[in-house]
């Protein structure tokens, strides 16, 4: 196992831990905004994962995914946040 492999392993472990921690907050909440923040965090982590995969596999196929996922994650989170805001206004 060369150092690069160690690096990958460490990376995956850290990212995996990050995902699990995010998951914890996602499920615990307590507020809607917490979840929303976590949603975004998960999507960024997913993109990060894919970026690591790109490096690991040396594969072009996933590069498109990096940008697209980033874009879509952004749009999704933003829409949801806007919704949350409107909701607040509705109630107010």
């Amino acid at each position, binding site marked *: 196992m*060369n*150092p*690069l492999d*160690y*690096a*990958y392993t*460490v*990376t*995956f*472990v*850290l*990212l995996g*831990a*990050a*995902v699990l*921690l*995010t998951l*914890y*907050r996602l499920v615990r909440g307590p*507020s*809607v*905004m*917490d979840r*929303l*923040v*976590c949603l*975004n*965090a998960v999507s*960024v*982590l997913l*993109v*990060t994962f894919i*970026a*690591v995969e*790109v*490096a*690991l596999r*040396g594969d*072009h196929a996933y*590069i*498109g995914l*990096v*940008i697209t996922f*980033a*874009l879509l994650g*952004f749009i999704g*989170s*933003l829409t949801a*946040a*806007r919704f*949350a*805001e409107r*909701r*607040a*206004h509705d109630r107010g």
Partner: protein
Amino acid sequence: MTAGDIATAVLLPLGAAFAFTGTVGLVRFPTLLGRVHAATKPDTVALVLVLAGAAFQLPDPRVAAWLGLAALFQFLTAPVLAQTFGRVAYSRGEISTGHLITDELADAVERSREDDDGDGG
């Protein structure tokens, strides 16, 4: 083990470490705004570092351009989201004001409300 590999071997774990600490903050910070900080910023750093690390594994200018584009995109979107989250969280009243040293926005809101009342009255 080339220089590129070394760069990758440094950047990837570093990025992952940022992501990890960010999510630790996400879990442990007591305030919502604190968690917003922890969730949005270190992730961006992490992603950019990882993208840089990946670029060293695919020494192809086109690939590098793509990855650079992704990083740029992240730079553009992350603040927008962070700001939106912050604003929405504040507007929903979900931030815990007890942890704030000062809240000048609340003062401003208070002032503008008084103005409105004055106009109306």
